[in-house]
């Protein structure tokens, strides 16, 4: 497939890196140095120019493109890029936008602006946060097969009941598969005797119920409805609060600006809006921050989010989730005490990458910036799995593959050695990045 990406920022770069392995990729950016630097890191064709200019698009052979991805930092530029491209190509266009207002417009009509798929960064970040909030201790949560199968990543803490147990001892759940253990930079495919050490991240695939049970097992002192504080009433904060209240939770939202706080209070009926500076200790103590289970820092400034998150934890909040705008700081934030750092750009890049996969994976989750992927695959006649017990087909698959769950006609089938996979099944697999190409061709 030939993919043209406009914008070589964090999002565009991440998408280019994911796709260049298996597709032809051209990247357009107004900044020539950026394009050139990317060309040496990744196997792409770099073009310096303005993506909203037809000449530039034609230089990138846009008429031959299968997919056009507009991923600059500017909403209007992305929209105009797609509209411009539409005049000369039938490529599938994907546009990144920050603000949800364009998304609403786009949802009103088929192919508005000439865009086939729109990804709203802020909404995506809010959705990611909301998913993580739903599971105590979770680092990352993704849904597959229309919510029938869930994947989650948990960090094993010192105090966790499963710390220092073997996988065999910890695995007491009917429909749950331990897909992988991430230890420092290594991806370990767990065997029965693998020990879960404190500090490991474990990836599990299974039914939402069993994952929920497992999550509570990890953090036994979480029960009932979590007490949530969202800090920052920007686009991300608003959507997070909205998604949480839709789930019946009653979040509190802190916003410093008087008019904006008023606006939010009118828009969010199930949320308590508080007007204050969230870095004010007295205010936090007054609001019983020590009872808060999760604090979500969604201000429009990374440093402030870090401060709010750390301060809240210092004063007794259970977990802190912070929005980080610069992808490079994600690990650093999690290093110094933020439990989960959510990077809207990374989430956007992953979302767009999903859309451009060649195999029939309908859904992809990218683990820890591309160390591994979790894929949902519909089984066809060509698959090595079809009509054989899993025990037999495992020999034909590369080492870094774990079959997590099988969904058949809307019900979950637990994969065991003697399970026979049938055509039409949806299989959720964990694949290490090195085995990806081989695995996806065989499944």
């Amino acid at each position, binding site marked *: 497939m*030939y993919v043209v990406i406009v914008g070589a920022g964090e999002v565009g770069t991440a998408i280019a890196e994911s796709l*260049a392995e298996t597709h*032809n*990729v*051209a990247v357009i950016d107004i900044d*020539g140095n950026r394009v050139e630097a990317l*060309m*040496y890191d990744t*196997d*792409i*064709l*770099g073009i310096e120019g303005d993506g909203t200019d037809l000449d530039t698009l034609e230089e990138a052979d846009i008429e031959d493109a299968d997919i056009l991805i507009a991923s600059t930092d500017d909403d209007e530029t992305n929209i105009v890029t797609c509209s411009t491209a539409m005049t000369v190509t039938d490529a599938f266009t994907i546009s990144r936008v920050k603000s949800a207002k364009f998304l609403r417009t786009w949802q009103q009509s088929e192919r508005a602006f000439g865009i086939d798929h729109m990804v709203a960064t802020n909404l995506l970040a809010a959705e990611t946060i909301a998913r993580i909030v739903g599971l105590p201790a979770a680092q990352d949560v993704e849904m597959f097969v229309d919510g029938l199968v869930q994947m989650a990543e948990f960090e094993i803490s010192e105090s966790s009941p499963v710390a220092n147990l073997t996988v065999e001892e910890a695995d007491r759940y009917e429909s749950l598969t331990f897909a992988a253990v991430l230890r420092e930079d290594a991806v370990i495919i767990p065997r029965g005797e693998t020990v879960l050490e404190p500090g490991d991240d474990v990836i599990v695939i299974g039914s939402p119920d069993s994952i929920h049970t497992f999550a509570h097992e990890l953090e036994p002192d979480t029960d009932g409805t979590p007490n949530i504080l969202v800090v920052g009433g920007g686009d991300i904060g608003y959507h997070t609060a909205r998604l949480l209240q839709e789930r019946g939770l009653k979040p509190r939202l802190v916003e410093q600006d008087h008019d904006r706080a008023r606006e939010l209070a009118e828009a969010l009926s199930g949320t308590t809006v508080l007007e204050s500076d969230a870095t004010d200790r007295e205010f936090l103590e007054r609001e019983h921050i020590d009872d808060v289970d999760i604090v979500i820092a969604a201000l429009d400034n990374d440093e402030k989010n870090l401060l709010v998150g750390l301060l809240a934890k210092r004063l007794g909040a259970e977990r802190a989730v912070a929005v980080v705008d610069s992808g490079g700081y994600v690990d650093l934030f999690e290093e110094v005490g933020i439990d989960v750092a959510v990077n809207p750009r990374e989430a956007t890049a992953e979302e767009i990458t999903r859309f451009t996969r060649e195999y029939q994976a309908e859904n992809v989750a990218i683990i820890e910036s591309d160390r591994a992927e979790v894929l949902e695959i519909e089984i066809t006649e060509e698959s090595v799995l079809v009509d054989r017990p899993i025990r037999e087909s495992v020999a034909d698959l590369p080492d870094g593959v774990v079959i997590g769950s099988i969904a058949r006609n809307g019900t979950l089938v637990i994969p065991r050695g003697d399970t026979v996979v049938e055509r039409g099944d949806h299989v959720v697999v964990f694949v290490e990045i090195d085995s990806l190409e081989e695995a996806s061709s065989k499944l």
Partner: protein
Amino acid sequence: MAVRVNWRQSVAFTGTVVKYLAVAMLVPLAIGLLYGEDVVVFLFSIGIAVVIGLALERLDDDPQLGAREALLFVALAWGAVALVGAVPYVIAGYGTESTLRYPVNALFESMSGFTTTGATVLGAISLERHSHALLMWRQLTQWLGGMGIIVLMVAILPEAAVNGAQLIESEAPGPELQKLTPKIAETARLLWLFYLGFTALYVAILIGLHYAGMAPNMDVYNAVAHGFTTLPTGGFSPQADSIAAFSPAVQWVVIPFMLIAGMNFALFYLLVQDDYVEFLRDRELQAYLGANAGMIVILWGFLFTGSAPPLELGGVTEGALENSLRQATFQVASLLNSTGYATSDFAQWGTTAQGLLLFAMFIGGSAGSTGGGVKVVRWLVVIKAIRRQLFTTAHPNAIKPVRLGGHVVDEEVIRAIYGFTLLYLLTFGVATVLILLDAGRVGLEMTTLEAVSASLATLGNIGPGFGFLGPFGSYLDFPATSKLLMVFLMWIGRLEIIPVFVMFTGAFWNE
């Protein structure tokens, strides 16, 4: 980021190149079997290449080259290939009168081959003295080096494509990397395909001429042998008289293919896409063809009016229209883009003509061609940048970007080109002095023009110089120290200086 350069990775990857060099040696082995000569020589050489390659590969089982490792690798790979490529010369020369039995000479011949220089230290070039297989190996080294061994690796080895852009940029001539397609391996394959296509076409025409009775000496062996050295702007020939050994018809065929070899191969991609306008609009191509045409006319004037003395050997007879035009065209085309073939001993043409040819040698081929030298595009930019300098002296407030065919040249690129050109001239100057000193040390008679041409012809990967190292002479008389210096000059000339020089800086080895 590693604090230091991980040289083990670079060396291990160099092992891979050396290992595959054994595959290239199958060609002379096949010729050897055909003619029943030197089979053992190449069996041994293949064994040595494989053993050395595998040994080096053991240093790192999965080299992942970073930017600096890639640079180091390219420099090392060319050094290693030249060393291993010299093995057949030494083995074949063992116990014979061949001048290549001495390792320094063999290394010189090998480096001269791979870098497509075409300077030789063979005492006598003839198929009586050396086997068909060995002389074909000498030709083949130039063909492999022409489009580039690294480019070839990126084209065929998936593991080399990972940072192929970095690798190709270090090897391919010219100031900037040009990617034709999104995938670097595909770009490399395309370049080699054009190269292979032109080579095949050329060989076919030569063989056709032979069977049409217009080229009695151009048998299949010679056609293939010259096919291996024309497109890479190499200049080696299994004939002592170079192209003078063949009929005028052959000489007229060689000329256009020499011209093609000095063009940017990326431009042919435009032709494939039927974009003739864009092809003809390329400023470098215009300048390259213009420089050729201008110098041909001037030299033809000299030869036609008899300013250059007539020669015994395929010489120019005053006033002979076709002959003088052919000689002028051939020699300019051959020296300007660094091929180094000759149809007559231009070393006897008198100082005016030689001065003109020396000037041509400074120009070089196009960026992205197989030619050597400074490259046309760099001279274009330097000239334009100097013109701007003069203009802004008169108009201090003027802002004048340097344009090349409608595109603005980045100031950073201009600085890099200035730096390269200066470094090139400085290296050339220092090398000339060193060669003269070295000759004085051993009491070798040498004129300044000879030393100048030796330094320029090796650094610019041209081959023949003037005087005793003219097109029918050889570099044999130089002392071993000078030959090693020239091996170094050919090496840095082919890689455009920077990748090799950077290895001698402390900054490269330490963070």
